[in-house]
Each structure stands twice: as structure tokens, then as C-alpha cells.
């Protein structure tokens, strides 16, 4: 027997065991609506229909997926965009009755042979941003939804009472049932529903259930995430993965949905009915072998998951510390990956969908909760992932156990760790400057490093505490900034410069001050500052591979399109470049990982039976990417002003920050701004900050110019009807709307380049209406 090998049936988590009267809980259910459907077969990756549920009218129907829809929107997030376009209005807000919560799959989702193939894509109008937010998540729900018969589930309206929606692929039945007695918080609710709806009292049966839920925190904040469960037959617990960004869980609870449950009758390795299962198995096995041989020397995902990034980010001055003031910190080694490795349960496999041998989903089992309603209980904590650790450093929490505690409560309360952590870090900085204080924070001493206060804030948000700060705090940075300024408690510019949000969404956990391309990677996005569109820091800052604006614009075209592609297909991005073939560095374009791009070409062809090449993959994305931007424009956003980013993400806001990296910034004043060393000596820090401020703001606008031009948009960032037609996205209503918006911009004098171009500098073009050619 191999050392450390634990037979499945013998593993014990040591978690607190709960005994529920499930019969009583289930008897309390009252069926609001039942809808029977004909079970179907998935054909070449598509179930060929979507499910529509209206909780206000109790209408349930099936919608056909047409060939035209596949051609234009591919699937996954693309389908979500199409469904939203057909259902909402430009005035729809997150809590409008017509807002929808959509969970989609994608044609490759549910494949078991290729690692990272179980992602669901969730879309809604976000409470944080008032535009579409898309968020991807692992767990079994997406694949099970498809195998139960649907490429997507679309929920409109609001239920009168708390309900559970069941997609029962075993019976061919959709049910909306009231659910008055269940828990709301996810770690308990997922367990209750998994046991309640499993056909038999076996782990095998429980593994055929997946639950989507949020929690009490999602009810009372804009940070609500969706927890997607995947039952672990070794730990005997339903584990959780999160669709974190943009308040999807808030919308779920606003619709009075306690949970959505998907159940499959059975599935196997060819449930997607792929066109070419032989090639599929070959491509998948090749990647399994690559992970086996190389992961250990590359990212070490199989051992520690994404936490391996903590030490790398710290080393390169990219780990956000004390609300992104610094990129590294002397205490950071306390939360390096070996510290978490000590706590992780070392049993495998840890994939959040079957067959993912990258297996980054680590857990700490038998973790003793220190605070709040579950104090003293032992639980399984899923994670932490890198982003959650980055929240720890951002709040100056340098104890792995507090990060685990933060992680656990975020998950079970249905709070996005990223938004919660980034926002609290901002509140802490405001506390340090006296803009907030104990009284203004309703009794919380919210200073950097105060873990108790952090958790207490979360508990009070989850309880629905009505105190003024607690109420506003849970709505996120943008609302708190406005609130602080309205109260007149601090310098508005300082507040706006420090609050790390763009479009209303909190930043994820990377310091971007020294990488202009990555500032664009956060700012020139569709949904807000999330690293899933582009991660260009190393390419830009470390390797200096994209020095000019044109180079950066090209990267900010290619990579967002490439990364969007994963979301159209129901895939995880990690197996693309978090393991690389041994000879990758010797290829033409190592940053694209050419061999893996070819894998994905072969993979999509093997499932769908199409005959696409790598250029077509980018086109698939470009169609949906432009469509989503156009929808933002339709909703009154999606312009240059909406791509604004806070100065903290561009450069040093405070004197302390400047002086902490003085040598670097002084050098830039000489090399980039052309000041002499003598001039610098005479300047005080404030003046130097101002010089850098003006320079970097202008650099960002010039970058936006180059990117809009490359993407085929107007100088104000609007996708043009010509571009849409070229992509064959020729919906007349959409084209007409775009032309009207462009005309409006012209009239208002907004169709102009944003950069200040001096001697020897040129905007991308001086031609007017360049897009009409």
C-alpha cells in the first residue's frame, strides 16, 4: 500500500455531525409548480434547449436552442447574453422583477476527459455595477443541468416565499417548492438538500446531486455569491465552489430562492455524446500526463492549489497589502503556501469536476470555527484560494487560521471573498486616516489587522444589523465612497483615489501600479476589475514583452478574447497556462501556450463535430464580447467614463506609499518624464506625486485610445455597427441602438481621443469615422 493512502471508506474529516429531521423539513414543503418534461439526449455537447422559470407568474417553459444561436453565441456565457437581451430592458436593475438569474453550461461542459471541464457561467444584472455581471464557477451543477436536459436555466420574477427549485433529471420534472424550514447558510443547506433529494442513502446517490445556494450575507449585502456544491465521496460532505463576483447571490436571495438543485439519473464519460470520443480521450490523457510530470515543478497546483501565488506575488511586489498601498510585506511569509499546505488534507483527487487532475480545490477538514454562530463547531473549509489570501494581506491579517475563518464565513454566508476583503481593506485605510472611526463604524475598531472586527462586521451584515455603517458597508466601496464624501468626513480625492473599485465592482487581488497593461486589464473590462479577462503583469512589467501602446492594445485584444472563450464553452482557464508543455518557452508565442491552444481546437472539434481553427475560437469570443459591451452601452454605460479606474491602481496615492518605493518612482521621473536629478532634489514628495499622477493618468487614457481602436470601437469605447456586422452579429435592434448612441456621443463632443498627444506622439488615427471604412 502506498504511504499516506487512505481507502475511501475510512477517511474521517472530524467535522461536527449534524442530525436533522429531514422528513419534517421536507413535509413542510408545498409544491408551488410542477412541470414535466421529456428527458432528452445531449447531442455533440448541446442539450438543444434551455429552461425558463418565472417565479412571479409560475410559468415554466422550454426554449429551443437554434443552430443560429449556436453559430452566434457558441454557448455558456454567450447563451446567457442572448437570453438576457431577449428578456430585460435597458432600465432593468438588479432587483427589478424582470431581471434574470441565468446559469449556463457550454458545449464542452461536463466532459470528463479534459481537466477543467465543469464550469457553469452565471449572469445577472449586478447590484454592484447595474450592468451585466458574469461569473464562472466549478461544482457539479452545470454538467448535471445539461445531463438533466438543459443548456441553461433562466429564472425571472420573484417568489412570494422562500423556495427551492429542483431540476430532476431522474424523473424529468421541474418543481418549485416552498422551503420554510431549511437553513439558509450554505454549508448546512447544501448538506440538508443533498441528503433530502438523493434517491438512496449512499454516497454514490448523493454524488448525483448538486445544490446552488447563497446565505444570510447575500441577503443583506451586495456581495452575494453563489455556492455550487460538489459531493465528495471521501470526505462525505458537499463541498462548495463560488461564483463570486458581482452579487449573483444577492439576486438569488432577492428572488426568494433558497436553493436550486440539479439531479441526474446517471452519467458517464460520453454523456455529452461527443462527435469523436477517441480524439477527446487522447487530448485529455496527454494533458493528464503533462500535469503528472510537470505540475510539481511549475505551479504545484495539485499540492497547494492557487495559494502558490502568494509567495510569487510577494516577491514581485504584487501582493496587495493594506488596501493595495504596498505589494509586499515583511510578514507575508506567514501566509505563504507551505503554511496552508500544513493544514490542507492530503488526499486526492481534489477536482471540482470529475477528471480535473489539476485538482486545485484544496480543503481544510475539521477546522474549528472561532467566532460567530458556528463557534466551536468543526467544519470543512474549501480553500483558501490565492484571492482569499490576498484579501488577508490586504486587510493585514497575517494568520492562516484567521484567513480560514474569513474564508469559511464568506462561503457559508454567501459573500464573495474578493469584494468583502477588498472593501473591508478600504474601510480599514479610511479608519487609519480618521475618516472612519469607532463611532462612525458602529462600535467596530476597523483598523488594519483587526481580525475580530472583520469577522464581527461580517456577522453583523449577515444578521441584517440596521446600524448605518453596517448597512452601507455591505453595499460595497462605491456606495461607501459616496457616503463618506456626502458626510464631509474626508478629502473626496483621497477617498476616490483609495477606494479600489471600478464600475462599482471591487478589485481582485493584484497590485497593478507598475503595469500599465494590467491597469487596462482591470479597467477596460466588461463587468469590472476582475483578472479573468487579462493577466498581463509578467508579460508587461517583468518581461517587458509589450512595450508600446500598440503592443499592449494587441494583448488587450487577444487575451480578453481568448479568456472569454473558456466561458463560452463551460471550461476552466487554469489548465490552459497553469501547466505548460516542457518546450513551451521555445515556441513562437510562449505567452499564448500554442500547444494548448491547439488542444482546445481539437477538443471543441471532437465534441461538436465542427471543423474550426484557432482563429475561429477568437472570433467566437469576439462576437460575444462585443455583444456584451454593446449591451452595456444599451444600458447607458460602456463608455470611456465607465472605464475609469482609481489612482491607487495606477500609482502611489500617499506620501508613505511614494517614500516606500522612492528609488523606483524618482528614477521614473527622470527616465519617463525627463526631469533632471537636480529638479527632483528640489521637489517635495507631494509635488513628485502630482507629477507622476498626471503622467500616469495620461498614460492610461492613451492606452484606452489604443485598445478601443484595436477592438474596433469608437474613441468613446462604443462597438460600432460596422464591427458588429463584420462579426455577423446583425440584430437590427442592436445595430440601430449603437448608431444612435454613437450619434449622441458625437453631438456631445465625446467621440474624441482621451490622451494628450505631444511632440512626436500620435493618437491611433487622425481619421474621423475610421470605423466606417
Amino acid at each position, binding site marked *: *500500500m*502506498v*504511504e499516506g*493512502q487512505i*481507502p*475511501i471508506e475510512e477517511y474521517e474529516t472530524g467535522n461536527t455531525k449534524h442530525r436533522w429531521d429531514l422528513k419534517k423539513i421536507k413535509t413542510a414543503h408545498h409544491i408551488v409548480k410542477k412541470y414535466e418534461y421529456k428527458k432528452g439526449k445531449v447531442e455533440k455537447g448541446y442539450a438543444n434547449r434551455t429552461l425558463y422559470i418565472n417565479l412571479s407568474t409560475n410559468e415554466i417553459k422550454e426554449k429551443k436552442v437554434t443552430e443560429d444561436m449556436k453559430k452566434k453565441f457558441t454557448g455558456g456565457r454567450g447563451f446567457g447574453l442572448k437570453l438576457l437581451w431577449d428578456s430585460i430592458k435597458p432600465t432593468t436593475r438588479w432587483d427589478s422583477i424582470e431581471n434574470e438569474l441565468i446559469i449556463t453550461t457550454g458545449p464542452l461542459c461536463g466532459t*470528463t*476527459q479534459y481537466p477543467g471541464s465543469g464550469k457553469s457561467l452565471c449572469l445577472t444584472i449586478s447590484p454592484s455595477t447595474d450592468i451585466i455581471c458574469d461569473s464562472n464557477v466549478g461544482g457539479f451543477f452545470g454538467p448535471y443541468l445539461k445531463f438533466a436536459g438543459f443548456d441553461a436555466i433562466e429564472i425571472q420574477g420573484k417568489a412570494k416565499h422562500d423556495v427551492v427549485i429542483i431540476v430532476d433529471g431522474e424523473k424529468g420534472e421541474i418543481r418549485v417548492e416552498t422551503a420554510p424550514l431549511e437553513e439558509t447558510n450554505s454549508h448546512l443547506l447544501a448538506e440538508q438538500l443533498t441528503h433530502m433529494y438523493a434517491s438512496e442513502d449512499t*454516497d*454514490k446517490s448523493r*454524488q448525483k446531486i448538486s445544490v446552488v445556494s447563497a446565505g444570510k450575507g447575500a441577503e443583506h449585502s451586495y456581495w452575494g455569491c453563489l455556492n455550487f456544491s460538489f459531493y465528495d*465521496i471521501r470526505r462525505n460532505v458537499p463541498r462548495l465552489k463560488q461564483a463570486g463576483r458581482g452579487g449573483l447571490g444577492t439576486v438569488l436571495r432577492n428572488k426568494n430562492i433558497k436553493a436550486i438543485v440539479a439531479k441526474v439519473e446517471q*452519467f*458517464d*464519460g*460520453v454523456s455529452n455524446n461527443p462527435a469523436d*470520443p*477517441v480524439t477527446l*480521450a487522447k487530448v*485529455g*490523457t*496527454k*494533458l*493528464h*500526463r*503533462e*500535469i*503528472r*510530470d510537470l*505540475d*510539481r*515543478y511549475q505551479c504545484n497546483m495539485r499540492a497547494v492549489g492557487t495559494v502558490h501565488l502568494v509567495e510569487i506575488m510577494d516577491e514581485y511586489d504584487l501582493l496587495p497589502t493594506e488596501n493595495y498601498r504596498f505589494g509586499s510585506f515583511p510578514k507575508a511569509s506567514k501566509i505563504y503556501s507551505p503554511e496552508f499546505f500544513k493544514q490542507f488534507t492530503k*488526499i*486526492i*483527487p481534489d*477536482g471540482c469536476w*470529475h*477528471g480535473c*487532475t489539476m485538482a486545485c480545490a484544496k480543503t481544510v477538514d475539521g477546522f474549528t470555527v472561532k467566532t460567530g454562530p458556528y463557534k466551536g463547531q468543526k467544519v470543512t473549509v474549501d480553500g483558501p484560494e490565492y484571492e482569499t489570501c490576498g484579501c488577508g494581506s490586504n486587510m493585514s491579517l497575517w494568520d492562516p487560521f484567521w484567513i480560514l475563518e474569513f474564508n469559511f464565513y464568506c462561503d457559508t454566508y454567501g459573500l464573495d471573498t474578493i469584494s468583502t476583503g477588498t472593501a473591508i481593506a478600504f474601510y480599514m485605510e479610511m479608519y487609519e486616516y480618521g475618516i472612519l472611526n469607532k463611532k462612525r463604524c458602529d462600535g467596530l475598531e476597523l483598523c488594519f489587522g483587526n481580525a475580530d472586527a472583520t469577522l464581527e462586521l461580517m456577522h453583523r451584515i449577515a444578521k441584517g444589523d440596521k446600524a448605518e455603517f453596517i448597512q452601507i458597508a455591505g453595499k460595497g466601496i462605491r456606495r461607501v465612497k459616496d457616503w463618506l464624501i456626502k458626510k464631509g468626513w474626508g478629502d473626496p480625492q483621497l477617498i476616490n483615489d483609495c477606494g479600489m473599485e471600478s464600475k462599482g465592482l471591487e478589485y481582485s487581488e493584484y497590485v497593478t501600479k507598475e503595469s500599465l497593461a494590467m491597469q487596462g486589464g482591470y479597467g477596460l473590462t466588461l463587468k469590472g476589475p476582475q483578472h479573468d479577462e487579462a493577466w498581463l503583469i509578467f508579460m508587461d512589467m517583468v518581461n517587458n514583452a509589450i512595450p508600446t501602446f500598440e503592443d499592449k492594445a494587441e494583448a488587450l485584444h487577444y487575451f480578453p478574447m481568448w479568456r472569454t472563450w473558456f466561458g463560452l464553452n463551460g471550461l476552466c482557464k487554469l489548465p490552459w497556462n497553469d501547466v505548460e508543455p516542457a518546450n513551451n518557452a521555445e515556441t513562437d508565442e510562449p505567452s499564448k501556450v500554442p500547444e494548448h491552444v491547439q488542444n482546445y481546437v481539437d477538443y471543441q472539434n471532437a465534441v461538436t463535430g465542427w471543423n474550426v481553427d484557432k482563429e475561429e475560437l477568437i472570433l467566437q469570443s469576439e462576437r460575444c464580447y462585443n455583444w456584451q459591451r454593446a449591451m452595456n452601452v444599451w444600458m447607458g454605460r460602456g463608455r470611456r467614463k465607465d472605464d475609469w479606474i482609481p489612482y491607487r491602481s495606477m500609482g502611489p496615492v500617499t506620501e508613505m506609499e511614494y517614500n516606500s518605493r522612492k528609488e523606483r518612482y524618482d528614477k521614473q521621473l527622470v527616465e519617463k518624464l525627463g526631469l533632471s536629478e537636480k529638479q527632483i532634489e528640489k521637489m517635495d514628495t507631494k509635488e513628485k506625486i502630482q507629477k507622476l499622477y498626471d503622467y500616469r493618468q495620461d498614460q492610461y487614457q492613451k492606452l484606452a485610445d489604443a485598445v478601443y481602436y484595436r477592438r474596433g470601437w469608437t474613441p468613446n469605447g462604443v462597438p460600432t455597427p460596422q464591427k458588429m456586422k463584420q462579426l455577423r452579429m446583425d440584430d437590427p435592434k442592436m445595430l440601430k441602438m449603437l448608431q444612435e448612441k454613437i450619434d449622441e456621443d458625437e453631438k456631445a463632443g465625446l467621440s474624441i481621443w482621451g490622451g494628450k498627444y505631444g511632440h512626436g506622439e500620435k493618437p491611433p488615427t487622425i481619421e474621423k469615422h475610421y470605423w466606417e471604412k
Partner: protein
Amino acid sequence: MDKPKTVKILKFHPEKCDGCLTCEQACSQVHFKTEEGGDKSAIKIIKQGDSYKMHVCDQRGLCLDMCPVGALTRKKNGVVWLDKKTCIGCQACVGFCPIGAMRKSEARIEPFKCISCGACVRACPKSALELTEVKLDEIPEVVYHKQGAE
């Protein structure tokens, strides 16, 4: 339940082998009800210069931990067993087997492997194969990352 302490594994006598591949045919009969051998056989006889070598599972069971659905278990007799009905065809065991002994045929998505049934031993006209009992503890421990891709 008492854990198995021993398991029967195949032992090969290359000096007796003449490369007739009857063993592979017998094996594919067990797994796929065909005498094709080759990719449908869990045992492989490979010509190496003037001699032959055998390539087959040694029941070390590293794959047990790879299976996300628990389709791989160690039976009472010590043999590592793949339950086809439970298997969801992810190929994780195929990709991670350090000696490439978990096999995949184009005939179906679920892999297959040697189950020490002895069909090949009985079929071999030259008695080049035998089943020998070994202690599980003595099967060499292999760590994934030290293995080359073969």
C-alpha cells in the same frame, strides 16, 4: 475488514517467450470478447532486440487515489479493480499511471487493466507467464513526479 496483505501479479520468463502474442489474444477475450489483442489487451509483449519484455500492471494501486468517483478499489484478493459501471471515463488513472499500465482502447471510454485472472498464463503455449504472490508492502513505492511519461 482485514486489509489484503498479498496480491498475485504476473511474472514473465522472457527466455521462454517466442512472441506469439497468444496471451494478448486471451486477454482481449476477457476484456472485450475478441481475439484482436493489441490495444484491447491489458498485457503487452514488446520485442526488444532478440528478446521480449512484458508490460503490465503490477497492482501497486497508485491509481486508487486518482479516481473521483471511487470506481477503483482494491479487492479482497489484493487486485486493483476498475468498476466499469461506476467509472465516468475521465482517464485520470490512465494519464497518471506511472508505468502506463492502465489501458484505454478505442472501443469504449472506460479504461481497463490487468486483473490477475490468469487467462494469459493458461493461454501461453510456452509457459512463459506465471502468477506469483507478492506482499503488497514490497511493491516498489513510486511517486508521480519522479516518473517519466511513457
